[in-house]
């Protein structure tokens, strides 16, 4: 039995956001960090919102917590009143040592999982997540890499095989691992195209660059197009970033 990977699920708890169908089952082998959060405008003190909404939010979180526990997950819950949702999500993902943040969406079947692999950086966390969440299911995982210019097919295959080996070493069923290499100019478009045949997507968190300020984060672009749940594997945060 592998260690349960911690997965953060942020839910806007007071705005009627709920857990889409299939997500509790998807996470039955995970340690779910259930983050109920409520974003308030700057004119309002967070404590003011707490005074008024805590009871309702807690009742709602109780229901959601039960959903995950019934499916078999362990649950760790937090309720946060905040002015900046992203700051809260980043902080909790770090504090609770979460391997990934889940952008929830309905999932009917869990047969085909696409795992987008960017490079060797963070591959350890990617492996731990895929193993922890999917080893105990019947899903086939497809390790997918978009080769960059000047990167040979052999290099790309080595990268994916390395990940596949780590999974099988942990006892992940060899027959349920496939690899796929793509060559296209833009990795984001390539991933979006590839997701058509899949139920669940796993991808890495992207570093904010200038381009992401203009076009938005690749993760958000992909999540917007893809109709299933997306696991965003968090990069390791150095102490200085705290």
């Amino acid at each position: 039995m592998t260690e349960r990977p911690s997965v953060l699920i942020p839910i806007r708890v007071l705005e009627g956001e709920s857990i889409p169908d299939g997500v509790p089952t998807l996470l039955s082998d995970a340690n779910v960090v259930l983050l109920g959060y409520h974003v308030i405008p700057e004119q309002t003190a967070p404590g003011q919102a707490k005074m008024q909404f805590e009871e309702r939010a807690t009742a709602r979180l109780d229901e959601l917590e039960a959903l995950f526990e019934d499916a078999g997950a362990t649950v760790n819950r937090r309720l946060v009143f905040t002015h900046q949702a992203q700051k809260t999500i980043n902080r909790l993902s770090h504090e609770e040592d979460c391997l990934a943040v889940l952008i929830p969406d309905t999932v009917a079947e869990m047969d085909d999982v696409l795992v987008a692999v960017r490079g060797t950086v963070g591959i350890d966390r990617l492996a731990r997540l895929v193993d922890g969440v999917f080893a105990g299911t019947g899903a086939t995982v497809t390790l997918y890499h978009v080769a960059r210019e000047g990167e040979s097919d052999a290099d790309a295959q080595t990268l994916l095989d390395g990940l596949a080996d780590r999974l099988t070493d942990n006892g992940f069923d060899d027959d349920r691992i496939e690899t796929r290499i793509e060559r296209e100019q833009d990795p984001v478009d390539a991933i979006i195209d590839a997701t058509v045949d899949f139920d669940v997507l796993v991808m890495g968190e992207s570093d904010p660059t200038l381009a992401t300020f203009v076009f938005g984060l690749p993760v958000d672009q992909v999540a917007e197009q893809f109709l299933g749940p997306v696991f965003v594997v968090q990069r390791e945060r150095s102490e200085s970033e705290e």
Partner: protein
Amino acid sequence: MSDPATGENVAGERPAPEPEGVTDETTVQGDDVELERTIGLVGGLAIGIGTMIGAGIFVFPGLAAAEAGLAATLSFAIGGVIALLVALPTSELATAMPRSGGGYYFISRSMGTSYGAIVGLGLWLGLVFASAFYLVGLGHYIVAVLAEVGISLAGLPVGPHVVLGLLFGAGLTALSVGGTENTAKLQNGIVVVLLAVLTGFLTYGVLDAAGVFGRQSVPQEFFSQGHLPVLSTAALVFTSYLGFAQVATVAGEIKQPSRNLPLAMVGSVVVVTLFYVVTIFVATSSFGADRLGTFGETAMVEVARDLLGLPGAVMILIAGLLATFSSANASILSASRSVYALSRDALLPRWASKINLKYGTPHIALGMAGGPILVLVATDQVEILAEVASFLHLVMYALICVALLVLRRRDPPWYDPSFRIPGYPAVPIVGAVASAGLIVFMNPASIVIGIAVMGGSYLWYRYYATDVKLKGDV
């Protein structure tokens, strides 16, 4: 606090429970409830500087020069020193109790509910007076802008600046209730622009005064109006130094409070003091204090026109609009936070801090700020508004210093500030005496109104919340 707040008010409401702990990034409430801290050092400085700079530079120079002559420079310096003497103790208390409510919170927890109620209600109303003062200033700037483009509003039954002040007061309140856009970013931007414009303008002004550009500055006597007006002017212009306490009213939302609170409070006082002193020096060198005094609230525009011609005047007009606008906006928001802090502690009805579901904003608390502000704007008493605002703040400042002395002497186990002021006990003692002393030099009318507000606050406490105990284990 080790001793939880207890008791209930006449409506049967109890103070909300105290937080369990404070981290760099959150206030922890109960088992798994957290309040995220989202204001960084820059945000804190912007609140402090943004609130203060509007008054000292864009409203007071003319008024101060008329009263004290060139020695108005000294009046601003005195105000700055007193503000610094209070900002240091406030910083220490804020790092020990980084919770929303600022001075009110420190005083109610260390000296008890009655002092807390007087200071808390006084803080709310003090901010109301300050906002009204900024709005009248803003009105003057809009009138000046319109005059510059040839539109005259003369012929109205009341002063046009009052009408404009009322319009903007109502508009800002409505915007705070209904607006969900990121106002903090805007506020930060305004402060950066203001500081850049002022630095450029003042550098030129100082060089000019030093004769670099070959002009003669007006020779004049420093104490042209005598010595006493220096102190009464210091009392008047002290409204320019109220902003650092606003940083403490949002202490519960500041990230890394032990580091950022002292830096933001002391830093903003030092920055604005420098700007004020240089501004008055430049303004009086350019015209002479006597002539400057005749220009009233928008005297700086004439200074800029004299130094840099029409572009200079336009630049300072726009800067003045931004500055008075941001001061008024920040004060309305702080006033609403004070209402929340009082309502949390059952000194005001719980419904006063209710949040509406549509916008997620505290419409009642904002209305309790905006409503009385409009009444006060309509009075058009710039100097009285400024002085009453200062009076109510100075009472709080003096008590903050006393609260520090009380806590240091008793040294309760929960009192563990991460920032300890240098110069204890001299700094808080001088701070308390100077704050109280400045009140003596105000207009009798301002003193009477200030005492009436305090008396009213005390009576409200006796009627509404006699049984509420807020004092910690001191």
